[in-house]
């Protein structure tokens, strides 16, 4: 079996890990909201919950499709059965909406009109990404770059290990989507992107474990 063959399930593992980690962050944030009653923590939790559900939809999609099928899909427009096509669109929509919500919380945006426009942009990008899949990665790349910018500012302010790990985790996710944009040229980009995604989620998990095991 080729190296690529061994690595071809990476998207499935990245999806499973992505679902678990983002779900954990959502739960942690919800718990902190219950304690403090700060609404931004509730919205932050909602953002990560959307991302987690997006990953879940992605995992189900990957389970019902073969690696080769996915490669063809990533290279251009493919007519999928309604259920699978819907699942893929749901995966993209939830992930984009989730990261957008996290960005909105980070930037403390208050204007409902701006938020409406941003979510509308998410819906349109998913509709277009159905035919041009790389646009999904481009949109996520764009949103994540803003999230990473916030994390970098946080690290500069705090200089703590946890904020560094969170910065590295999100930067890794940003890089992975940047690499996966080039999947239409070669499937190596897809595998490399997923590999980086797994490492990034592991780094975020490490940050969560450090926070949870914090010495009192």
């Amino acid at each position: 079996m080729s190296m690529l063959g061994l690595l071809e399930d990476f998207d499935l593992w990245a999806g499973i890990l992505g679902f678990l980690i983002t779900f954990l962050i959502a739960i942690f944030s919800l718990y902190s909201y219950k304690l403090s009653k700060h609404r931004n923590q509730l919205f932050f939790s909602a953002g990560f919950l959307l991302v987690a559900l997006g990953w879940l939809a992605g995992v189900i999609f990957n389970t019902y499709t073969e690696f080769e099928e996915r490669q063809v899909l990533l290279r251009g427009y493919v007519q999928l059965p309604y259920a699978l096509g819907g699942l893929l669109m749901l995966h993209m929509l939830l992930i984009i909406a989730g990261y957008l919500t996290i960005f909105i919380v980070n930037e403390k945006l208050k204007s409902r009109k701006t938020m409406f426009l941003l979510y509308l942009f998410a819906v349109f990008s998913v509709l277009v990404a159905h035919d041009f899949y790389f646009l999904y990665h481009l949109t996520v790349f764009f949103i994540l770059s803003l999230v990473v910018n916030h994390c970098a500012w946080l690290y500069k302010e705090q200089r703590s290990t946890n904020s560094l790990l969170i910065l590295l985790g999100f930067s890794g996710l940003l890089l992975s989507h940047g690499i996966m944009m080039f999947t239409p040229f070669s499937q190596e980009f897809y595998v490399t992107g997923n590999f980086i995604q797994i490492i990034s989620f592991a780094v975020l998990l490490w940050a969560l474990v450090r926070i949870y095991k914090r010495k009192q």
Partner: protein
Amino acid sequence: MTVRRDKMMIIADILLALQSKHLKFTHLLYKSNLSHARLKEYLDELMQKQLVVELQTKEGKRYAITDDGAKFYAEYRRVNEFVKSFGL
């Protein structure tokens, strides 16, 4: 710039002050940086929730943190670290 403390931060400050030793009301007043009436309000609520107990000693009334109070404070610190790390 000083940060205005919210209710949770004030409760955490009271519990932190009581973690090292049992304190008199006046000592707690200095440590928590609250007015008499506000501290009384907070202590009543904490005692009602069984996070703090009032003890009668030879030297007079003292306040102490309960096991539940210590657990609550530990959880608060954890959540606070999470909130700080993600910049919430």
